[in-house]
């Protein structure tokens, strides 16, 4: 076993999946947002909704395309770097990913073509239906991925036979309570990502004094939606904490930064955990709150990390901090969304440039929250890949050498940086150019199946000039 190869493989998986998750979480939210816009357009007949729809459809096209490209790599990596895990868990995780490919990818692909090029070819109700189907496809995709990961977090419904996980009860796997709190948590996070990006774009236009009508729609719908969803997300976040508390006590202790059993337990707000000394430095803690959060009681005993042998503990520092960053992002977003919604309600949002700036600058927050949330879940699961059953160190392809993985990691870093820098720059250019222009009817030669081509089909006057400038 090559320990460097193991570390590099983990880095590679973390890098590729972090890059990947950015784009689906954005496009899941956007697909739902597009459905809402199209429904509003049909219902009210206001052209502004259509204008906003066409604009976000272009952004959606690019984000969707980048998600597709980076997703293919994920499907291969289980086999290349984690072949022991792939062989053992294949009978359970293979089918879950197969359902994702069969159900979600083809649903997305077929209706996405209509979305991009079918406006003039299908009746309005069918166009709305197609939009909803794309949103449904992205949601299905998220479901099967969460089913996969939830099984790795809390494996159920299997027996071990000949060194492999053999499914005996699929209903336990598909109706695992863990899955049904984590899937909504992820879905809400994606909706919030969409909502905040939309609101931030609206705020940006208002700050620049352009596209006022569209900007108001974006800002109002984005912030109102976020204000509600953030509350629901808080609730599901709590339920997620409950499952961790119940099924993964050592992860819970790491997140809490609790080294020893406490009764009643305090809640550590901030500290620098020291795994060597098994204690926290510079700790700020609230007495009793830990018991309240963990068990909804004032005097419960909460377990500490030292109850578990060191080789079964996750690396404490990462989940401890990533969890706090995630919650911090949630708090800031909550503040922005509520104050913003209040000001919109009072009709004073345009006068409050501070809030517009805050809203604009908060667009990275949902992405950071999603990434840190996943780091908490995944790093907190260590040292296991299938929690409590298969260690990450035992899951790696046994003959993999550090040199091989170093090469692949470098290649992925270079290729990804290259294409994503251009993709992100392109999205930025579209956002800066903004909605507007005439509502271009789709060309006669419709071209579905090219996720990113919508961008070229409806050239923005401003965007083209920027393009020519490079």
């Amino acid at each position, binding site marked *: 076993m090559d320990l460097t190869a193991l570390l590099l493989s983990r880095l590679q998986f973390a890098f590729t999946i972090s890059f990947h998750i950015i784009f689906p979480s954005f496009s899941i939210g956007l697909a739902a947002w597009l459905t809402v816009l199209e429904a509003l357009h049909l219902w009210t007949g206001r052209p502004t909704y259509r204008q906003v729809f066409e604009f976000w459809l272009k952004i959606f096209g690019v984000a969707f395309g980048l998600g597709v490209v980076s997703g293919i790599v994920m499907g291969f990596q289980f086999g*290349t770097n984690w072949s022991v895990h792939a062989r*053992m868990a294949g009978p359970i995780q293979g089918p879950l990913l197969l*359902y994702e490919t069969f159900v979600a990818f083809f649903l997305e692909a077929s209706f996405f073509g209509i979305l991009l090029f079918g406006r003039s070819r299908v009746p309005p109700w069918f166009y709305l239906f197609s939009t909803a189907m794309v949103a449904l496809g992205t949601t299905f995709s998220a479901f099967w991925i969460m089913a996969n990961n939830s099984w790795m977090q809390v494996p159920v419904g299997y027996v071990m036979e000949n060194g492999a996980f053999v499914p005996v009860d699929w209903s336990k796997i598909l109706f695992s309570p863990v899955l049904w709190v984590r899937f909504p948590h992820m879905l809400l996070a994606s909706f919030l990502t969409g909502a905040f990006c939309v609101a931030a774009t609206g705020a940006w236009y208002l700050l620049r004094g352009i596209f006022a009508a569209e900007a108001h729609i974006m800002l109002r719908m984005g912030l109102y939606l976020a204000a509600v969803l953030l509350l629901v997300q808080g609730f599901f976040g709590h339920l997620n904490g409950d499952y961790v508390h119940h099924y993964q006590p050592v992860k819970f202790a790491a997140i809490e930064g609790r080294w020893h059993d406490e009764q009643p337990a305090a809640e550590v707000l901030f500290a620098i955990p020291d795994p060597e000394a098994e204690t926290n430095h510079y700790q700020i803690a609230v007495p009793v709150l830990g018991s309240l959060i963990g068990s909804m009681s004032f005097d419960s005993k909460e377990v500490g990390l030292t109850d578990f042998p060191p080789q079964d503990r996750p690396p404490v520092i990462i989940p401890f901090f990533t969890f706090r960053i995630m919650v911090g992002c949630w708090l800031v977003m909550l503040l922005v969304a509520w104050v913003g919604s209040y000001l919109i309600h009072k009709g004073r949002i345009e006068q409050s440039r501070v809030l517009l700036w805050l809203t604009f600058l908060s667009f990275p927050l949902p992405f950071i929250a999603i990434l840190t949330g996943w780091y908490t879940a995944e790093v907190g699961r260590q040292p296991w890949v299938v929690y409590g059953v298969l260690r990450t160190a035992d899951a790696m392809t046994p003959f993999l*050498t550090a040199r091989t993985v170093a090469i692949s990691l470098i290649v992925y870093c270079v290729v990804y940086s290259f294409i994503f820098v251009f993709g992100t720059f392109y999205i930025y250019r579209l956002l800066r150019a903004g909605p507007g222009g005439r509502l271009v009817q789709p060309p006669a030669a419709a*071209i579905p199946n090219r996720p990113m081509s919508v961008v*070229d089909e409806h050239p923005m006057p401003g965007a083209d000039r920027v393009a020519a400038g*490079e």
Partner: protein
Amino acid sequence: MVMFWVAILAVSILLYVLLDGFDLGIGILFGLTRDETRRRAMMSAVAPIWDGNETWLVVAGVVLWGAFPVVYATLFSAFYLPLLLMLAGLILRGVAFEYRYKTERMRWIWDAGFAGGSLVAAFIQGLTVGALVEGLPIANGQYTGGEFGWFSPFAILCGVGLCLGYALLGACWLVKKSEADLRDAAYRLIPYLSVGLLAFLVVVFAYALAENLQVMSQWLERPYLLVFPAIGVIAALVAAASVRHRRDGVPFYMVALIFVAAFGTLAISFWPYMIPFSITIEEAASPHSTLAFMFWGAGVFVFPLMLLYTAISYTVFRGKVRPTAGHY
């Protein structure tokens, strides 16, 4: 149940080879011309469908993982570096479809990515097949070849061969889809590519005889299997005649038939092994509870829908791509 998933896997791989085969082939041919009009026309001939074509690779991958996890784990880890190159190639050629039209100054980069990525992906796929035919070093169900266990002159030869094959398929697709200048250029390429491919087949056959590869024994034991190569020969003759008479629609289907014949030949050479000659289909198959779970949803209901969607997509985009009606 096992056989059902073998069939689904075979159909998925075959569809991938045929569909992505011609668009990778066009990517390879793309590198041979500098003419911007031709390049645009070549892009347009595959632009609407390449993404769907590539999805069949993902389908084959997940079927392999779900139904035959041992094969998925063994092959993907054994071909670590080749697969890395293939994925990088596929990513670069994929983004080229969009990015090349975003810039004038940097277009050469994306064009190089398109041609190079296509070439690398095709080469790796051929190499993989070649290495499998020759037999991977496997002991007790574990790959033992290290980083370069797949490397051999024969595997390299097969890589080159598949590049030629895909290029031929691509040229035939261009003949079918394009007009005037590009069509004529493609017609002129077909004889060269065909002779190259033929030479490759002769060398492969000679090598297999000389090295006494294990696949050969399959053929000696079951001579009736020669029907597949025979189909290939007939298809090649029809293709040659149709090229002579400039029947635009025919060569592509004939070359595709040659690919089907070659695929059938290979599949039967491997039978009943999944990784020749160390892991059989039965050994590799997932437990019944897994196969049944996939069968009663994805297999029976969704798979036909996927085929239907592919058919609809190709029906919508049938006919010639007019060179003047470029979408950019």
